[in-house]
């Protein structure tokens, strides 16, 4: 693995091997001493042009647990506000010897440009670009699903397994969601079925070519119109990207597409409630649903560190790195 730009970069075996390595990484995080010497002397740069809490600290924690040096760069308070281009920032990072650049950028395709323009020699990991992709989020969601649904809630028994035959509904603002795109691609690669649920205005053009089915009717999907669900993944309503009116009112959205206690109760008993965060409590997910026993929202954050450790390990070890 040279770069990780899209969930589509991973075939089934590569994705399963990331999840397997993440499982061993997660085991090391149960110990008293969580730090490993694996990436000693390597430098990871977090290049964040967009606000982020959990993705940035998750990558930072992952790099530090593997003993890599971490440089955090956020566009706010940097020379970007003086008009520095992505290229010049990249050349600066190259001069400082970055082995991996973890990039989040509001423009779709910026990580791809960074990886292939020849500005830097290091590897590039996409930590979310515009409305395009967020592959490590999809990996940690798949990891959470595999841990909970495959094997008896214990990592080792799920090693080597994919998500064949599992059914996941992804509900909400698919149009602006890089999480949804990466998850559709990765879950499909891993053999799961994905149902997208959203109002017509929040589904992108050309969705017919995605490897998934879709519906406008949340209650129908929850009640099993597309088959029993194993998990419901709620997407954040991205108010910062809402330049037009995509739905009449927040209350109407919440009533038709929000996950509340009643809808949670209608799910099969084993089904999980997931959310990539940050949540708008009361809008796409109610507090009861977010805090219920079947919610994996906090677990997803913990799993994110293990998955990102696995990604950094797989990118930075090996003779080609």
């Amino acid at each position, binding site marked *: 693995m040279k770069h990780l730009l899209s969930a589509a970069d991973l075939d089934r075996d590569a994705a399963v091997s990331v999840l397997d390595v993440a499982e061993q990484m997660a*085991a090391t995080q149960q110990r008293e001493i969580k*730090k*490993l010497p694996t990436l000693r002397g390597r430098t990871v740069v977090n290049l964040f042009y967009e606000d982020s809490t959990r993705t940035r600290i998750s990558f930072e924690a992952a790099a530090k647990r593997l003993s890599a040096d971490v440089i955090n760069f956020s566009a706010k308070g940097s020379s970007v506000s003086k008009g520095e281009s992505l290229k010049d920032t990249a050349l600066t990072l190259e001069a400082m010897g970055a082995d991996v650049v973890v990039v989040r950028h509001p423009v779709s395709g910026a990580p791809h440009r960074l990886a292939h323009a020849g500005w830097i020699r290091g590897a590039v990991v996409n930590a979310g670009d515009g409305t395009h992709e967020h592959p490590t989020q999809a990996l940690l969601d798949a990891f959470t699903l595999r841990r909970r649904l495959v094997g008896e809630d214990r990592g080792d028994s799920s090693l080597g397994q994919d998500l064949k035959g599992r059914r996941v509904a992804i509900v909400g603002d698919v149009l602006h969601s890089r999480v949804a795109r990466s998850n559709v691609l990765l879950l499909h690669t891993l053999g799961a079925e994905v149902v997208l649920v959203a109002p017509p205005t929040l589904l992108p053009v050309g969705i017919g070519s995605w490897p998934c089915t879709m519906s406008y009717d949340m209650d129908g999907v929850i009640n099993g119109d597309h088959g029993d669900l194993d998990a419901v993944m709620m997407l954040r309503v991205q108010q910062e990207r809402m330049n037009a009116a995509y739905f009449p009112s927040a209350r109407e959205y919440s009533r038709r597409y929000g996950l509340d206690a009643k809808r949670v109760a209608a799910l099969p008993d084993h089904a999980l409630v997931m959310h990539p965060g940050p949540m708008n409590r009361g809008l796409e997910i109610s507090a009861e649903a977010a805090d219920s026993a079947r919610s994996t929202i906090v677990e997803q954050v913990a799993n994110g560190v293990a998955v990102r450790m696995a990604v950094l390990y797989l990118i930075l070890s*090996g003779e080609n790195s």
Partner: protein
Amino acid sequence: MSSAQRATDPSGTSPPSPAVSPAAPAPDARAVLEAAEISRALSRIAHEVLERNKGAGGLILLGIPTRGVHLARRLARRLAEIEGTEVPVGALDVTMHRDDLRRQPIRAIGATNVPAEGIDDHVVVLVDDVLYSGRTIRAALDALSDLGRPRAVRLAVLVDRGHRELPIRADHVGKNLPTSQLERVRVHLSEVDGEDSVWIEGGS
């Protein structure tokens, strides 16, 4: 070590091989240990471990994946037969502590399982199949120190082929096998490879 092969690379590592059914021995391979000899060697090591430790009290056997783990389990069975007490067995993966990760193809990471009581104040016996450069054991000692502070650490290996690059020696050796660095030593165990044998190949 994830592989039974110790390649000719003097940095003491080998390319990863499939976990099951490695390639058949090369035409120039010669068997140096047969199943019965491996069995006798393990029995002797078991007695040595008990003699050195004055019994089975406080012992923990940790195998280094893949074949070291199977050898550790076999040793534990022998210890139970001799002493009548169960000795805890675990696995210690050293991949993340290796010093050669950048010189080798990507390695899969094996599982580390340590008995629930932990290793603090126990006598840990590391078990591996082949001792060569000593770098795997160096990594294992580092990995151990992350898990706790054993009272003592000992090393048991089935084959010691020489060519150490670090000041490390084994406490218990099944067979000292003088080799050339051009040769490679393969250990086959029935749990992984369907038969017990040790081969030397190459070098001519």
